[in-house]
């Protein structure tokens, strides 16, 4: 029996590693491609600044790639570290760790491409602002990585915690659910945060005097666009750390699995939507800084309404965990 568990854990670790880096490679590649396209268009507008644009393109791409590097780290750990196999729950946990990081890296990778691209374009439009633009791009794309960091945390907890004392049914469902909740919900927030950061880089290039208020509102918008990912993190934490009573029916395990799915998929749309809402706010604050109060309020109310669907998903997934 002992040998049997070991084999299954290895099997899950290999497939988890494949999924982690396979899915994780999607986002960063798209983001980097977008950045390179924008950099090309920037160079053709003002070839004299080709060196600066090239530099900022590479820096931006390096940041966009960090989400994929997280996936690579998780894949390496799954492949090479000796995971203690105490029960069949570890099989589910290890597989879920790969899923969580794989899905979680998609959004941040795509998102971090937007500010880098916008900064390249902005640099040729407003060469005097290139230092400020680079700073703004760095802050924007670093904050963009937060959802993938949440997914990474859930992966690490799933890999390194010992669940030997928990009952196999329904805990395996909770593990898979936790991975899916953290991973899928990070997609929307990553893309949304990137859209906001892109709009702010563009805005600063258009109106250099607005740099401080645009950066502030960008941080605010990104932070609120991350709410779905945070709700996903919350659901994942509950699924991992709550002790579930042992059952011999299949329903509770599936309920826990679907609560993770519900929060994860339900978080994708609101994340992107809030990002779009906030990008509008940031864009027009740069053009019309005098109306910052009204614009910010409208942006916040719009984002709150777009967020409500993520809250509905959270309510249903909490019902699935605690009631069903």
């Amino acid at each position, binding site marked *: 029996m002992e040998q049997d568990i070991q084999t299954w854990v290895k099997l899950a670790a290999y497939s988890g590693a494949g999924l982690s880096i396979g899915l994780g490679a999607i986002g960063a590649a798209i983001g980097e491609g977008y950045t390179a396209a924008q950099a090309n268009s920037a160079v053709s507008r003002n070839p004299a600044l080709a060196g600066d644009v090239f530099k900022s393109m590479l820096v931006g791409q390096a940041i966009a790639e960090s989400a994929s590097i997280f996936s690579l*780290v998780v894949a390496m*750990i799954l492949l090479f570290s000796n995971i203690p196999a105490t029960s069949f729950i570890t099989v589910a946990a290890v597989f879920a760790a790969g899923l969580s990081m794989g899905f979680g890296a998609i959004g941040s990778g795509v998102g971090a491409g937007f500010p880098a691209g916008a900064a390249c374009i902005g640099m040729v439009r407003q060469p005097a602002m290139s230092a400020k633009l680079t700073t703004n791009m760095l*802050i924007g794309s*670093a*904050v963009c990585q*937060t959802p993938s*960091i*949440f997914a*990474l*945390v859930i992966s*690490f*907890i799933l890999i*390194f*915690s010992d669940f030997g004392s928990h009952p196999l049914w329904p805990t395996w469902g909770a593990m898979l659910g936790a991975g899916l909740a953290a991973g899928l919900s990070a997609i929307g927030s990553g893309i949304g945060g990137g859209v906001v950061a892109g709009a702010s880089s563009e805005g600063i290039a258009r109106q250099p005097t607005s740099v401080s*208020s645009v950066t*502030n509102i960008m*941080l*605010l918008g990104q*932070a*609120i666009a*991350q*709410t779905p990912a*945070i*709700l996903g*993190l*919350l659901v994942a934490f509950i699924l991992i750390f709550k002790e579930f009573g042992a059952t011999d029916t299949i329903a509770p395990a599936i309920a826990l699995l679907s609560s993770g799915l519900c929060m994860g998929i339900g978080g994708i749309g609101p994340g992107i939507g809030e990002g779009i809402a906030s990008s509008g706010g940031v864009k027009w604050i740069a053009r019309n800084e005098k109306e*910052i*109060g009204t614009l*910010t*309020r409208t942006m*916040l*109310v719009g984002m*709150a309404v777009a*967020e*409500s669907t993520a*809250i*509905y998903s*959270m*309510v249903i997934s909490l019902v699935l965990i605690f009631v069903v």
Partner: protein
Amino acid sequence: MEELGKIHQLIIPLFGHNMVFNLDAIVFTWTVMLLILLFGVLSARKRGMIPGSLQVLGELFVSKLYDLTEDALGREMAKKYAPLVCALFMFLVLCNWIGIIPHMEEPTKDLNTPLSLGVMGFFIAHFVGIKTKGFKAYISEYFEPFFIMMPLNLIGEVAKIVSISFRLFGNIMGGSIIILVVSYLTYSILLPPFLNAFFGLFVGAIQAFVFTMLTVVYISVQAK
């Protein structure tokens, strides 16, 4: 890897209940408070037209955060709430930065710290809301746009506390877990200082700012 998720706790049984103290969080919260007091005393001790370096730093902190509050809340309310905003930001920044010193832990890594600050911001915001709009107008906002939306509006308000505190907690704890795991994998060679600089100094400062800004915004949304 045993340190992952371990919390030093002091459990005191009292009248049949267990009182649990998270020692790390308490000790380092007091450390941060003492450091802020020290900074306050040192920066204001020798005030003058030609400021010393600490006075410049203190003035910079206060004036920037005061301006920020004034932008969001208006001149009248800024007078009242800017000190709170200032203190909140300084406390959070130091809390997030203290972890880069070896053997010190960020108090914000313990969910209780961000959660209590989030609850504090929530109550202040709603107090401001009731005070400026009156109780009737405040309550009727929950029944918009329809009567049946009341429970969802309530959940939405509570979700604000969850999101603001988990954002800070997740970022700081995530950073420290990543540093721990990477240090373990690379035998603490080369990488940890850079990771500490990124997750400790950079992300810590940004998240402290975001938390402060969001508290101000929640207050201003309630006030208008």
